[in-house]
């Protein structure tokens, strides 16, 4: 026969399990009918007379509260299934997989009515702006107490690089994948242990081309096509391609700045020519 203490311990564990299960259904959008409500009520009822401490009663209340949330989800589930919007997700998934881009876009365009909106200055705001401009002291008066701003480095966006014609807009993915194939080929031809020196890969005939290759390389690493191996003591960086693209968790991302200066490129050129 179980002692009172042992029974309470088992009861607490079972309530804890019920709470976890209900939480999982709520958070992971699982089918709420996976939870057998009658069975849970039976368990809660069975152990209720054993609870004496406030903590146990709180646990009991939490289990009931979670169960109520699951029942609410069950009610919403039934409501949704009875609406005209209900579609079996599996059926839809199969349908989506079988359709090509054009067919999907055609379907979407039939149901899409984009908002019309304009952003334009009005006569009133123009008048207000002029009044403001007239009362605005010159910059030299306003900024005389501050030191002149220093030129700082910044991050170049893809759009800026497109504007500067460093990148081409068309088929960026294709360009990236060709570049990845080139990396794999170079590693197979010239690399060791499946990797190649970073500069031997990004270095090119011209400085501009080198910057372009370094930029693309940063995408190869960020999107999991390759990885960098850094040896700080030897001051060497290697790039290692992956056979298949890998999914990189956001938490693992580390930023690694590599300066592609003209001096560094000239140095590499001299070394490459000497070889």
């Amino acid at each position, binding site marked *: 026969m179980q002692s009172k203490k042992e029974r309470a311990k088992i009861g607490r564990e079972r309530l804890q399990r019920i709470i976890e299960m209900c939480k999982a259904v709520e958070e992971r959008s699982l089918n709420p009918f996976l939870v057998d409500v009658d069975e849970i009520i039976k368990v809660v009822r069975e152990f209720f007379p054993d609870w004496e401490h406030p903590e146990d009663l709180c646990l009991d209340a939490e289990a009931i509260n979670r169960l109520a949330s699951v029942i609410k989800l069950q009610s919403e589930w039934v409501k949704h299934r009875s609406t005209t919007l209900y579609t079996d997700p599996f*059926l839809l*998934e199969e349908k989506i997989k079988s359709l090509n881009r054009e067919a999907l*876009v*055609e*379907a*979407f*365009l039939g149901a899409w009515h*984009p908002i019309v909106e304009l952003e334009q200055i009005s006569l009133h705001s123009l008048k207000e702006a002029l009044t403001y401009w007239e009362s605005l002291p010159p910059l030299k008066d306003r900024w005389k107490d501050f030191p002149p701003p220093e030129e700082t480095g910044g991050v170049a966006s893809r759009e800026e690089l497109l504007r500067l014609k460093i990148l081409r807009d068309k088929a960026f993915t294709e360009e990236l994948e060709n570049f990845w194939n080139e990396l794999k080929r170079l590693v197979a031809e010239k690399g060791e242990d499946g990797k190649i020196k970073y500069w031997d890969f990004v270095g090119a005939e011209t400085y501009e081309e080198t910057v372009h290759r370094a930029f693309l390389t940063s*995408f190869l690493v960020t999107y999991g096509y390759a990885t960098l191996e850094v040896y700080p003591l030897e001051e060497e960086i290697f790039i290692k391609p992956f056979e298949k693209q890998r999914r990189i968790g956001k938490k693992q991302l580390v930023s690694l700045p590599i300066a592609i200066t003209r001096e560094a490129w000239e140095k590499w050129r001299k070394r490459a020519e000497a070889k």
Partner: protein
Amino acid sequence: MSKRKAVYASKIKRAVHMLFYRRHKKPGVKGWELRKALGADYPKVLRILDEYLKPLDLQVKTVFEEGEKPHSEKPTPEELDKARFYITLRGDLTPKEAKMIGWRIDDLAGLAITIAYIISKKGKAPRKEIEELLREKLPGWKASLNIDRYIRYGYLSQDENEQLYLDWRTRAEVDQKMLMDLILSK
């Protein structure tokens, strides 16, 4: 022009200014703002404006709070006050036109898949599942970037558990039932 007609013509002009030009961070105007500016008969002003917009293939779209439908056929003044009003396209765009307003075919197909999948999952789906679905047709790195973009535009929202929901722009722009019917009938 009768006095009554002149009053409505002036109210319609004011409504056009409010609805076409963006006043806040999000487009659209709340019902109570229209009531304040146009008077209690603003639903009638909007109905007349909607008629005027018909030949231009535009419409006045009413989106009730949180996408909820009004309790009865005729919404109450309170429900209308809380609703948001937009000017949207009445008909459809062609793929060429969609491209001209800045959408790539890939991104639009991705948006269609995402919205349809969330609808089928009762308005909420894990981001991971949608990324996997998008990866069937898009390169891996683009799937996640696209979802971020849909969130930025207001088509989707995401909670701290990485669950995706349909957001205000989907409710305003997409006829959800029509989308599901069109996809399933393809």
